[in-house]
């Protein structure tokens, strides 16, 4: 195979606080025609920056300070802006992480699709429209002849992501950069997008750089995997070899994350009073009912994981329990006593017992308050501590979450990493000394290693204080590692619930089955096997055939 892209000793810097800081430190990368390279690493590893550099492109405030990028004999770092524009979109295309944000809201999908081919002079507008419809069919989009004439907001996230892949294909480029194209999607949608991307890349023999932080995903897509850590290359190897024999310690640690699992606790006595009992909750936003008769119990010292796709009503249930969204009907009991449904009618003791940790620690912490003030507020409000007592208590709490008090107490949230911010969120919840904590997707925004640290911390705190957790997540790996019981939700209803061990053992409710089987596995053959099992292989081609007949 012939060489398509060669990046040699690439150094990239980003500007912040008036100085240039290194992002990529002398990384080499090469790609043959038709080859798929997986680029993985945690956030901040420089994956996206590297991917964009492969297009000779830097975001504002970023520069390539050294090295060379050679695409099919063209030096992208020396080429003129016009010369590069002639390549971008036509021979090198890009698929962004969030299709919803990367499609222009002001134009129809198909007009954005045809823009590239028409402006680059590859096809006429009508040819390109016809081609778009065929690509939509190949990518298994519903109603391929009409879907393009919608505006981006009229189409779901998974469909948009496929439309964006189609758009990248519009000029039949030699190389596509996929920048986390499935990260924002539910597992069930992710499968469809992955399968579509893989099919179409194989079919047109397009080379690709596939950027992701999810090892199992990259295992399905890539021929070769390159691991990045803080701008340095850790190792590169063929996919199968990398999975079976990772060399570097860092790579091994990435692999190990998914192995954290705590033993399931014995089932509680049936006569025990649950800490929280949700009974027949119905809730609505405006006129639209979003929860229908939701019931489950959470016992002392246990973790109940609530799983489901986005829009299934997980977070709404949490809002009902906290009283932020008073349910239309049903009862919420705490230690066997019914709680007022509206949080405004609950007394301080009742409020104190139910605490919450949020998904986005960034937005949940006041950026203008120091860590000491953030944690001190509930200490003062609920426990009535002031002055030196308050400070001592805050220091204890920081100790609990494994952040040295003397170093962190006077810092602002912006000076902390994502994982540290999430720990502050935990400390703030603990400050009220509750019996019950709702964790709403607390690890979703974090890298796997950091997430594991948070999960271990939560597990330890639970053991020490006999806390009860309601753990909202869409990630079944997380469920596997920490849940005692599982509640599966779909469209505002509970479709299945029971102990974790039962949940991961067949027979399941069909929806649970779909969720479980959709979680990518490390096995590189997993996707092919699954698609064959589900009988959805080559549906795309069948759809094109059908369309052409009509």
């Amino acid at each position, binding site marked *: 195979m012939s060489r398509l892209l060669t990046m040699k000793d690439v150094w990239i810097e980003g500007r912040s606080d008036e100085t240039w800081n290194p992002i990529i430190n002398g990384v080499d990368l090469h790609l043959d025609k038709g080859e798929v390279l997986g680029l993985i690493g945690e956030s901040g590893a420089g994956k996206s920056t590297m991917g964009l550099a492969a297009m000779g492109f830097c*975001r504002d405030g970023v520069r390539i300070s050294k090295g060379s990028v050679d695409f099919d004999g063209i030096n992208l770092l020396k080429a003129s802006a016009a010369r590069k524009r002639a390549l971008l979109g036509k021979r090198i295309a890009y698929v962004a992480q969030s299709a919803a*944000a990367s499609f222009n809201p002001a*134009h129809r999908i198909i007009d954005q699709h045809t823009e590239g081919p028409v402006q680059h002079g590859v096809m006429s507008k009508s040819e390109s429209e016809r081609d778009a419809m065929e690509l939509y069919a190949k990518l298994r989009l519903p109603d391929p002849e009409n879907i393009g004439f919608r*505006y981006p907001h009229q189409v779901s996230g998974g469909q948009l992501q496929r439309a964006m892949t189609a758009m990248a294909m519009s000029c039949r480029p030699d190389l596509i950069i996929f920048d986390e194209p499935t990260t924002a999607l539910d597992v069930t949608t992710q499968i469809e997008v992955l399968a579509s991307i893989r099919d179409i890349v194989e079919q047109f023999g397009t080379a690709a750089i596939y950027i992701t932080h999810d090892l199992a995903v990259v295992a399905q897509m890539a021929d070769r995997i390159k691991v990045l850590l803080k701008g340095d290359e850790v190792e590169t190897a063929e996919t199968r070899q990398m999975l079976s024999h990772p060399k570097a310690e860092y790579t091994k640690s990435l692999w190990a994350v998914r192995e954290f699992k705590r033993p399931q606790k014995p089932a509680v006595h049936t006569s025990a009073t649950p800490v929280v009992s949700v009974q027949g909750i119905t809730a609505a936003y405006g006129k639209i009912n979003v929860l229908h008769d939701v019931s489950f119990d959470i016992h002392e010292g246990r973790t109940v994981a609530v799983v489901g796709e986005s829009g299934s009503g997980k977070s709404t249930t949490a809002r009902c329990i906290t009283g932020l969204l008073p349910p239309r009907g049903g009862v919420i009991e705490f230690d066997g006593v019914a709680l007022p449904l509206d949080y405004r009618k609950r007394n301080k003791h009742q409020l104190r017992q139910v605490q919450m940790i949020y998904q986005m620690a960034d937005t949940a912490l006041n950026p203008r308050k120091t860590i000491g003030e953030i944690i001190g507020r509930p200490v003062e409000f609920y426990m009535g501590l002031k002055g030196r007592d308050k400070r001592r208590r805050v220091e204890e709490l920081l100790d609990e979450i494994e952040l040295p008090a003397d170093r962190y107490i006077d810092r602002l949230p912006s000076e902390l990493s994502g994982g540290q911010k999430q720990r502050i969120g935990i400390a703030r919840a603990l400050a009220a000394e509750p019996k019950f904590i709702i964790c709403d997707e607390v690890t979703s925004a974090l890298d796997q290693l950091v997430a594991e640290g948070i999960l271990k911390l939560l597990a330890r705190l639970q053991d020490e204080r006999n806390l009860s957790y309601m753990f909202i997540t869409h990630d079944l790996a997380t469920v596997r590692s920490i849940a005692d019981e599982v509640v599966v939700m779909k469209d505002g209803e509970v479709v299945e619930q029971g102990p974790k061990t039962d949940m991961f053992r067949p027979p399941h409710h069909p929806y649970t089955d779909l969720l479980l089987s959709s979680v990518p596995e490390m096995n590189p053959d997993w996707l092919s096997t699954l698609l064959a099992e589900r009988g959805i292989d080559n549906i795309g081609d069948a759809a094109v055939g059908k369309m052409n007949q009509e």
Partner: protein
Amino acid sequence: MIITEKTRTGEYLSTVLKIILQRLALGLLTLFVVSILIFAAVNLLPGDFAQAILGQGATPEAVEAIRRDLGLDQPPITRYFQWLVGAVQGDLGNSFAQANFASFVGADSGNKASVAAQIAPRFWNTMFLAGVTALIAVPFSVLLGILAALYRNSAFDKFANMFTLSSISSPEFFLAYILILFLAVLNPVLPSLSNIYQGMGLGERLEKTLLPALTLTLVVTAHMMRMTRAAIINLLASPYIEMARLKGMSPMRVIVRHALPNALAPIINVVALNLAYLITGVVVVEVVFVYPGIGQLFVDSVKIRDIPVVQACCLIFAAAYILLNLTADIMSIVSNPRLRHPK
């Protein structure tokens, strides 16, 4: 499929119609409140018409007689409602200054004296000047804003910013005299007096209006140009702009096709505010060029306490503001594809 598209469009039209009607009703309410404010403010003006017109010969009896003739002896609330009822029916009352006092005793007040007849030609002159200015200024500012965004931080951008800022910061009469100096005195291409009259041909009218229109263009450009530039630059960090660049689109196309349609709402709002200014705030320019617009009439009427004319002018100004803001609101709503094409 076709049916659903049609129903969608139908739903959309009815939503937009509903919004328009709602805003119109709110606009009327605002106008009503403003009318109270206007009436109160005008009546708080020191001095009165009878005193002003009689000057030295203002004996208490004569003042009293004129006040009675004009209805100024009535309590303010009665006068307000008389005025309001008249205004709603399109009768803005009679001008004090043009009145033949004897006629108040008799039946016929004469057409010349009605406020409407006095304001109408002036109003159309003002609209004409505002229209000509808008036709020059709006495209010019938006284009300048687009170019400034395209070549941001370049010498051109800095020059455009400096030029528009210094023109908005200079007094209007100063700009007017500079333009007169260059375009009427040193190079006599345009007339420096804009004394237009009824029955004048369009060409001549345009020629005479051009200099005040250019002066006003200089005054309103800065605001609109800077908003256009800022609204576009604000969007340049969005992922869809990055996407357009990564598709190899030219910088001009990225800005005009990808950024501008999403930046319309704030631009439309600033344009509307400036258009309202062109109708209500151009008295200085009118005076310099002797342009017979509504602004001059307004100032003259205040000077001689011709209350009905002052009130009518204020009401027209308020209505212009409300109507233009309403139009801006509706246009920014319509420019949003999420509303134009609901799910």
